[in-house]
């Protein structure tokens, strides 16, 4: 098992280097001269030339990439164009809030999505099944910022149960944004769980399990769900990007000081140093999430581990 983990982790390294190269190149082709951007409205041609020299912008591309990579490896993503704070610090300061939101949303999505899926697949009432799946379809279709604004209006402004201007702090600040972010993924999981459970519910080994007199609860969890889980875990991994993307809107609507909101403001200001750092961190966490999914496969299905 340890060898499996190490092998998988090792393969993540070239991916990360590729990511850093792509990120770097991408921002080299981003239009606009950073020196002009920094000096702004009052810039003079001499000032811009001076600034380009200080920032090393006239050096060859490969040298600048190596410099960027050497910094990134040591956790130094440079300084923001505006404000001149270390980008890594700015990201780290916001990471916990986003992590809290993403994790709560994921938990909500898995708990409700999977339970609803199981309910839908096993219920004998066609009406309940259809109704629940209609709701899931709505959940997938509605844009999350629309849901967020509506929830905020209902519970923040009309009912006054939570602060109408969001923010961070206790559970009350978390519940609406986490719910909003969970809707789309939860709905996807509900549909997926339903179809996967239905697929295996009539399989031979399930009939065998029932036939040997196993409790229905055990049949469900040990035989049906264990097989359905592989697909569910895959989808969670793939949806990690959706989750991160979602935080951009959700944190904006609920004024949460996280990475999503930071992304939005960095793009708005065209602070490429910040955007580059964020893209790199997002990409790295995506790689990391998929690594975990890979490892989970091995855990869920021993055949994968030994192949």
């Amino acid at each position, binding site marked *: 098992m340890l060898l499996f983990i190490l092998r998988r982790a090792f393969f993540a390294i070239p991916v990360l280097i590729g990511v850093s190269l792509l990120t770097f190149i991408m921002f080299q082709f*981003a*239009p*606009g*001269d950073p020196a*002009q*951007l*920094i*000096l*702004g*409205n*009052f*810039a*003079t*041609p001499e*000032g*811009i030339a*001076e*600034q380009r020299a*200080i920032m090393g912008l006239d050096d060859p591309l490969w040298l600048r990439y190596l410099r960027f990579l050497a910094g990134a490896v040591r956790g130094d993503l440079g300084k*923001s*164009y*505006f*404000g*001149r*704070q*270390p980008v890594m*610090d*700015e990201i780290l*300061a*916001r990471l916990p*809030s986003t992590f809290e939101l993403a994790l709560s949303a994921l938990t909500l999505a898995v708990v409700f999505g999977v339970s609803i899926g199981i309910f839908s697949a096993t219920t004998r009432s066609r009406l309940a099944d259809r109704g629940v799946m209609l709701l899931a379809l709505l959940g997938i279709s509605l844009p999350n910022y629309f849901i967020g*604004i509506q929830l*905020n*209006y209902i519970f*923040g*402004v009309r009912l*006054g149960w939570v*602060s*109408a*201007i*969001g*923010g*961070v702090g206790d559970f009350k600040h978390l519940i609406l944004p986490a719910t909003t972010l969970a809707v789309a993924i939860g709905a996807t999981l509900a549909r997926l769980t339903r179809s996967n459970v239905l697929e295996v519910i009539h399989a031979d080994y399930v009939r065998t399990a029932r036939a040997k007199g196993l409790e229905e609860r055990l049949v469900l969890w040990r035989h049906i769900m264990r097989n359905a889980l592989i697909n569910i875990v895959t989808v969670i991994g793939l949806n990690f990007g959706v989750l991160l993307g979602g935080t951009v809107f959700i944190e*904006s*609507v*609920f*004024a949460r*000081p*996280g990475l999503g*909101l*930071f992304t*939005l*403001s960095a793009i*708005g*200001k*065209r*602070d490429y140093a910040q955007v580059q750092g964020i893209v790199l961190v997002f990409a790295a966490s995506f790689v990391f999430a998929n690594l975990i999914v890979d490892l989970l496969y091995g855990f869920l299905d021993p055949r994968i581990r030994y192949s």
Partner: protein
Amino acid sequence: MYKKTLLTLGILLLITLLSLSPLAAQEEGGTMTFAISSFDTLDIHVSGDGNAMGIAWLLGATLVARDNEVNYHPWLATSWETSEDGMLWTFHLRDDVTFHDGRSLTAEDFVWSITRLLAPETASPQSGRLRSISHAVAVDDTTLEVHMNDPFPLLLEHLSNTGVVQPYHPEFYEEAGDQFGREFVGVGPYVLEEVATGESVTLVRNPDYNWGPPFVMNQGPYHIERLEFVIIPEPSTVLAGLETGEIDYAAVQASDVAYLRTLDHLTVLEGSFQGMLPALHFNMSKAPFDDIRVRQALNHALDRQLLVDVILEGHGRPQYGPISSTIGGYWEGVEEIGYHYDPERARELLAEAGFADGLELEFKCLTPTFNTLCEVIQQLFGDVGITANIVLVDASVVFGDALAGNYDVMTLGYGASESDILYRWFHTSRMGALNPSRAADSELDRILDNTRKDIANRDMWVNEAQRHLVEQAYVAPIYRSVNFVAVNNRVQGYLENPANLATWAAFFNDATIASE
């Protein structure tokens, strides 16, 4: 780049109607909550954010203060004089001013701050304002000499109008290291309590502040105990906060004004934009835009009132000159000699220029800001036989294209609080840094040079520059928009300023807030 910062700045700075709300009982205390859309750092030398600069100004003070009629008054300097050739300014400082940590302010602190602001390593977006300063010298604790590279008539303007040249505390700066900007010590009416990254900035009242400029209502400590600036980028969330009373002060969108005015607990204030945004720029380095008749025709094709009605829902005014009527030095003559809507004349001019059968051009349009505007303009152009092919360009591309001359006609513009923007935007020497219309006009350069050199006749030269720019039609100004701010009626006794100014500092200098 300009638009966002400058609009926020504009919202901060401009509040119409000079009137004082009835004086409330002068009670100290309370918390006033502001919604701001963004924030970066309190180190305003390197900040690119209008809100951050507004907050930083509450933490500090400047040498001179500017009133609404553009007179300059003593603030941290009790008096000042300038040498005959304009190359040396001497400021005499107050001796009773202290930083928030109790240390006395000296001329040395100003020298340090100005030196850092101008250093190339600082790469301050503000340094260009003060390029004319060579260096500063502290003669003694209360005498500051500012030596110039060239006589610069707008020195007092730039020393007074943004709070950028406020004294930093050098020892504190060293001590704070890279935390500086999240931590700050100044000489202003408010003391920094906390910067919660990405979340909020909290200030508390400085009870020792006793050096307000003479023309403001209250020279002593402010009355409101705490100011909380909460970062909320999403307008609908700001609206929700105003509605529930969790937000006391926020910039709001024109489309929400009608609804906000129906709420009894809010007052909506109106302020005008300063500068020239949006305006069509014509690329002088490309035919046929080097032909004045074509540029004039494009100007005459614009029904500016229609654009105000359609795009701004009537909140705004047509603009004919390169600076708005809300800037000192505005010349009313532009309204007369400017190009009014005249499709007949536009067609005539085009025919004279050899385009009787129509003209096709590429119209670069800043997206998403001006999408609708450009579509309406496209129709207006169509009415006079011009086929404008809209190309949507993102903010990141706009400037590169403009400076490289990679366009025919383009939406661009600036926010500015003073008329020196004409020099910075249109002077030939500025090509490559600004000057997007790429006009190389020696007559215009002569006029603009004089706005900086012939200080005694500066007003005349500024008028002349406006006349020349309108006559040559390098740009087609469109309209001056209006900004809106909603204030909770809990806040009493604030100043509703006319043109410019004020920043939050002068805005609620004497204001109080009712406790819940």
